[in-house]
C-alpha cells in the first residue's frame, strides 16, 4: 500500500467547505441530495397517508397540493437529477479515467455552492409554499402564490449548478484521460455520464429562460404565456418539456452506466456489445431532444405535431432495449454472485423494463389520451425513476461504498432492506397502473370511492418501502464506523478506481496509470476467447 494519505484524512469544517477535491465535493453532494431523498420520501408518505381515505381527511386539499408539489420538485430537482451525476459522477469520473481531478476543480466547488444557495432560496419560499405541481404550468403558476418567483429563482441557481457540473465533466472526459485510455477503453459509466452531461448542458438553459420568463410574466406582465395578452400557455409547456423530457434521461443514463459496470464484474464476464451500449447512450441523449411533445398530446397541441412526436418517441425504446438485451446477454454463462450491488442491478433491470414498457402506452396517441395524467402515468414514472434510477443508484452505492468510505457494508442487513424495498415498491406502485386504467386522475386530494381499495393497498406498500429504506440508510450510517475495513478491491473489479487504496488517496494516483486494455477482460485468462 502507498503511504499517501487518504482523502478523508484531513478533518474539520474548513477542510470540507473549501475543498477542491472532486471526491470530497462528490461526498458533499451525496449527503445533500440524499437528505432531500429522505425528506421527499417522507412527504410521499404523508401523501399516501391522506389517500388512505377517499374523502376529506387528515389535512386540507391545499396542503395535499403543496405536499405533492414539494415532493415532486424536491425529488426531481434536488435529488434525482444531481444524485448520480454530481455525487457518484464527481467522485468516480476522474478515478475511472485515470485523472487526478476534474478539469476545473474551482468551478466544481462553485457549482456545489450554487446548488446549496439554490436550495436555500427555495427553502425561503416555504413561508408561503407553492402548490403548482412540479410542472409549473401557466397560467396557474403565473397567478399562484408570490413564492413562485422565489422558487423559480432558486431553481435557476440549481440549474446553473447542473450546467456547470455537466460542462466540467465533458471537458474532463475529453482532456484528462490517462495515457492509453482511448474512447473504446472507457468504462461504460463514463459513456453514460458523457451523454448525461451533454443533455445537462444543452437542455438546462432552456428551463432557465423558462423560469426567467415566468418571473417576467409575474413581475412585469410580459404576456408570453398569457392568452389574455395574445400569448400562448402551450409555449410554456413546449419550453418546459424541451428541458424536462431530456432530463428524464439525465436521470436514467448514469444509472444505466452503473449497471454496465456492476453486471460484468459480478458475472465475471466481459460486457456484451460494448460499442452498442456506448453509442446507445449517445443515441438516447440525442433522441431525447426530439420527443418532448409526447407530454402534450391532449394539451391542445396540433394533431400533426402529436403524430410527429409520437413517432419519434418510440425510437428511444430501440437503444434502450439494446442495452437491456446486452446486459442480459452478459449474464449468459457467467459465474454470478448475488452480492448486494448485483441484486440491486438485477432489480433495476427488472423494474425498469416495467417502467419502460408502460412508456409505450403513453407514447401511443390513442392510449395516451386515456391514461394521460392518471395514476397510470404516476406508476410509469415511479417505475422508471424510483424503480430505475434509484435502484441503479442503490446498486452504485453498495458497489462503491467500500471505495468511498473504506468500510464494507453489512451484507445481511443490505439483503433485508432489499426484500422490503422490492416488495414494498411493487405493492405501492403496481396498483397505480390499475387505478390509472380505471381512470383515477393524478393530483387528486380526494377521489371517488370506487378507487378506495387499491389506494389502501398502495399506502400499505409505502410503509413497507419506508421500513426498507430506513434499514438501508441505517446500514449505511452504521457501517461508517462499524463496518469491516475494506480492501482496495473487494469485488475484484478491473476498473481503475479499484487499483488504488480504499478510500483513495487525495491525489488519486501516485503515478498516473498507463492503460493497455479495456476494463472488461473478466475471464480472459481463464476462459476461452470465443467470439472476440
Amino acid at each position, binding site marked *: 500500500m502507498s503511504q499517501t494519505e487518504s482523502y478523508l484524512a484531513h478533518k474539520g469544517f474548513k477542510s470540507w467547505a473549501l475543498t477542491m477535491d472532486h471526491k470530497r465535493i462528490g461526498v458533499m453532494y451525496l449527503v445533500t441530495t440524499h437528505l432531500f431523498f429522505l425528506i421527499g420520501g417522507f412527504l410521499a408518505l404523508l401523501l399516501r397517508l391522506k389517500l388512505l381515505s377517499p374523502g376529506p381527511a387528515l389535512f386540507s386539499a391545499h396542503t395535499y397540493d403543496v405536499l405533492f408539489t414539494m415532493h415532486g420538485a424536491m425529488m426531481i430537482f434536488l435529488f434525482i437529477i444531481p444524485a448520480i451525476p454530481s455525487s457518484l459522477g464527481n467522485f468516480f469520473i476522474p478515478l475511472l479515467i485515470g485523472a487526478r481531478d476534474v478539469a476545473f476543480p474551482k468551478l466544481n466547488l462553485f457549482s456545489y455552492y450554487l446548488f446549496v444557495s439554490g436550495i436555500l432560496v427555495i427553502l425561503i419560499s416555504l413561508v408561503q409554499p407553492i402548490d403548482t405541481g412540479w410542472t409549473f404550468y401557466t397560467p396557474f403558476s403565473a397567478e399562484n402564490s408570490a413564492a413562485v418567483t422565489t422558487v423559480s429563482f432558486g431553481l435557476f441557481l440549481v440549474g446553473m449548478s447542473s450546467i456547470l457540473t455537466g460542462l466540467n465533466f465533458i471537458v474532463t472526459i*475529453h482532456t484528462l484521460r490517462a495515457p492509453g485510455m482511448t474512447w473504446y477503453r472507457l468504462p461504460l459509466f463514463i459513456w453514460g455520464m458523457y451523454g448525461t452531461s451533454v443533455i445537462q448542458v444543452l437542455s438546462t438553459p432552456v428551463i432557465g429562460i423558462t423560469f426567467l420568463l415566468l418571473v417576467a410574466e409575474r413581475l412585469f406582465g410580459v404576456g408570453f404565456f398569457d392568452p389574455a395578452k395574445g400569448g400562448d400557455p402551450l*409555449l410554456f409547456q*413546449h419550453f418546459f418539456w424541451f428541458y424536462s423530457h431530456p432530463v428524464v434521461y439525465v436521470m436514467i443514463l448514469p444509472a444505466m452506466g452503473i449497471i454496465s459496470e456492476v453486471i460484468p464484474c459480478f458475472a465475471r464476464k466481459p460486457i456484451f456489445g460494448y460499442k452498442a451500449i456506448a453509442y446507445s447512450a449517445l443515441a438516447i441523449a440525442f433522441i431525447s*431532444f426530439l420527443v*418532448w*411533445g409526447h407530454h402534450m398530446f391532449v394539451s391542445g397541441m*396540433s394533431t*400533426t405535431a402529436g403524430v410527429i412526436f409520437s413517432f419519434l418517441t418510440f425510437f428511444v425504446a430501440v437503444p434502450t432495449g439494446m442495452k437491456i438485451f446486452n446486459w442480459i446477454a452478459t449474464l449468459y454463462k457467467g459465474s454470478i454472485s448475488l452480492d448486494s450491488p448485483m441484486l440491486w442491478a438485477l432489480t433495476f433491470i427488472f423494474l425498469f423494463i416495467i417502467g419502460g414498457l408502460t412508456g409505450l402506452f403513453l407514447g401511443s396517441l390513442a392510449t395516451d389520451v386515456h391514461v394521460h395524467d392518471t395514476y397510470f402515468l404516476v406508476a410509469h414514472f415511479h417505475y422508471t425513476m424510483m424503480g430505475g434510477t434509484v435502484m441503479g443508484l442503490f446498486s452504485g452505492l453498495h458497489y462503491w461504498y467500500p471505495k468511498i468510505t473504506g468500510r464494507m457494508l453489512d451484507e445481511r442487513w443490505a439483503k433485508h432492506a432489499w426484500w422490503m424495498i422490492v416488495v414494498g415498491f411493487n405493492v405501492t406502485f403496481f396498483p397505480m397502473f390499475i387505478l390509472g386504467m380505471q381512470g383515477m386522475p393524478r393530483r387528486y386530494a380526494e377521489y371517488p370511492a370506487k378507487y378506495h381499495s387499491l389506494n389502501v393497498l398502495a399506502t400499505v406498500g409505502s410503509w413497507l418501502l419506508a421500513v426498507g429504506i430506513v434499514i438501508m440508510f441505517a446500514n449505511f450510517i452504521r457501517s461508517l464506523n462499524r463496518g469491516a475495513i475494506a480492501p482496495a478491491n473487494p469485488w475484484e473489479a478491473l476498473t481503475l478506481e479499484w487499483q488504488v487504496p480504499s478510500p483513495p488517496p487525495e491525489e488519486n494516483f501516485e503515478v498516473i496509470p498507463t492503460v493497455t486494455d479495456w476494463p472488461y477482460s473478466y475471464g480472459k485468462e481463464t476462459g476461452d476467447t470465443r467470439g472476440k
Partner: protein
Amino acid sequence: MAYYKSYVMVWIALIVLTGATVGVSFLNLGLWNAAVALVIASTKATLVGLYFMHLRHEIKLVIGFALFPLLFLALIIIGTLSDTMTR
C-alpha cells in the same frame, strides 16, 4: 501585424454590412426583407466567428463544440413550430 490588419478588414466589412442591412430595411421587399436581413446577419456572425473567435484556426474538436449546439437551437424552434404552425 498581419492579424491586426485582418481584424480591421473584418471590422470594416462588418460595418459595411450593418450599413447595408439598415439601408435595405428602408426598402419594402415584402417577405424578402426578413430573408435579406437574416442572410446579412448570418454573414456577419460567420465573420465574427471565423476571425474574431479564431474558429478559422481552431482544432476540429472545438469547431465541433461551436457548431453542434446550433442543431439544438434549430430543434427547439422547429419542434415548437411543428405545433404552432399546424394548429
